[in-house]
């Protein structure tokens, strides 16, 4: 009776499983996926087990069937929801998928297949959701600094629409074309700063600043808290600096 026995059901979760660097057969061979689903219902499953469960069984209809059944059982025992909805889960899901595709072909998360090749990437060809990062690198103006706002109001050109940080409704992207009013828009200027209107207010995306941010993260992390939190945090969204 101790916590070390937490994963006795899955003796094959050995060091191999810790580094899915090459295509591997399921390290959970012999484990009934329904058993994993049961543990998942209870939140008692390691992320790796979930990853393999999805990698190996996501395409099977039994997966969702079993999951649905277990959820119904729990809801009945707790009286937290009716056992049956007006619409079957399949129909409900189908409606959601259909609307997601029809309403907004370019809405995030846009699922573009990025095939990650061999080492050191992960085993499954991950279809990656972009730009939860994007919002991270949008800078906000510090309250009280009016000069930038003035520039925004005076000289901007609408480049086009871009999806805002995750919410419905697109934002207009504007480019800061210069420091002083009256500058002809046709003047060849590298505008490095782009202002995006989002529901959170105007956010600024500044490529140069982000490059410096990356440098600051990499070489400026002189902190007692750098290990592990600081380093890990930097590695988690270092990406756009390069």
């Amino acid at each position, binding site marked *: 009776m101790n916590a070390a026995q937490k994963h006795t059901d899955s003796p094959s979760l050995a060091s191999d499983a810790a580094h899915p660097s090459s295509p591997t057969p399921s390290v959970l061979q012999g484990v009934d996926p329904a058993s994993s689903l049961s543990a998942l219902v209870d939140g008692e499953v390691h992320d790796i087990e979930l990853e393999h469960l999805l990698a190996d069984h996501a395409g099977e209809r039994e997966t969702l069937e079993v999951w649905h059944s277990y959820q119904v059982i729990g809801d009945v025992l707790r009286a937290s929801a009716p056992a049956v909805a007006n619409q079957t889960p399949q129909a409900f899901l189908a409606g959601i998928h259909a609307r997601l595709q029809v309403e907004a072909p370019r809405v995030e998360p846009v699922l573009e297949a990025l095939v990650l090749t061999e080492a050191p990437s992960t085993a499954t060809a991950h279809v990656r959701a972009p730009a939860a990062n994007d919002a991270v690198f949008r800078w906000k103006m510090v309250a009280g600094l009016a000069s930038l706002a003035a520039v925004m109001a005076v000289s901007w050109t609408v480049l086009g629409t871009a999806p805002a940080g995750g919410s419905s409704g697109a934002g207009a992207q504007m480019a800061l074309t210069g420091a002083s009013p009256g500058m002809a828009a046709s003047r060849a200027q590298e505008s490095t700063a782009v202002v995006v209107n989002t529901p959170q207010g105007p956010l*600024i995306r500044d490529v140069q600043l982000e490059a410096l941010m990356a440098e600051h993260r990499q070489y400026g992390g002189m902190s007692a808290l750098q290990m592990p939190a600081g380093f890990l945090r930097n590695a988690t969204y270092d990406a756009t600096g390069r």
Partner: protein
Amino acid sequence: MTFALPLRVALTAPVRSVARWLPTPTARQPWRAAALMALVAGFWTPLQAQTATPTATGPRSVNEWLMRMHEASRQRAYMGTLVVSSGASMSASRIWHVCDGEQQMERVDTLTGAPRTTIRRNNEVITFAPDSKTAWVEKRESLGLFPELLRTPSNAIPEFYGVNEAGTERVAGYLADVVEIQPKDTLRFGFRIWAEKKTGLVVKLQTLGEQGAVLEQVAFSELQLDAPVSMGKLTRLMKDTKGYDVQRPVLKKTTAEAEGWRLKEPVPGFLPMSCHTREVADAPAGGVAPMQWVFSDGLASVSLFVEPFDPQRHGQEKALVTGATHSVSRRVGAYWLTALGEVPTATLRRFANALERAR
């Protein structure tokens, strides 16, 4: 089935919470009553660990806490999922960590945004970008500094930060001590840190701004301590750069003085830590790579980037913020300064005002 209630039964939180259900009709669900009895009859108080086991030496000082947190990550293997969140955004990554007494290795795979795998061994770091088949290899000085940082006589941390122990909470399934590190002035931010109770490993960290606002949070959403992470595998992964364009950015270590800069007035608590420039080849288009001058007060870092002023790229002064990182950019004579740091804007302005040419 009958249970004789033992005398020393402690009613724990879950049992207290279910007690209110007893009035509801259990006729339809007789097993619920039986389950309750089993709970109460057990000689079990799962929250026992939470009763404070007072340390032999009393509350820890801020240095002691920091040492403990640092040592924890050096001595345990673990893997988990890390979530960095700030405002409305969130990034996540998968983490593996292992050590063998001398070597520390880590692997970080981003789960959001651009795919990146970062592998570190001590202070050598390689970052793989599978989408562009590029890899960057670096030696990061900042990773080797601690704990020497704490042992130097000029260690400013206790002078500028106080510590407060604020109870216990669960993070990612582990009980953790909540430690608040509070700034003694307004030039820096505070932190709230969750340190796993047994080992001291940092499992959650918040950077706190004015009125305790959470500017950024880094937390394990899922963690397994003593995970079977293979150092051999990580070493092999680190070396396997086949098919990748490997770049080795080279820094030229220097001093601010040699570059012709100084601060006419120091900013309290912040000491200069390092200064470097880059080889010209690495410079962004149309410019010389900025000099980077790094300061730290032990917990917060500030980088001053200085480059010649370029009217094409440099405009007006601006002050921006993302997460916990603030930035102030302005012209200083014939140069352009960008100050970045996890400190309030006012602090960066003080740096900017104090920066001057030495010759």
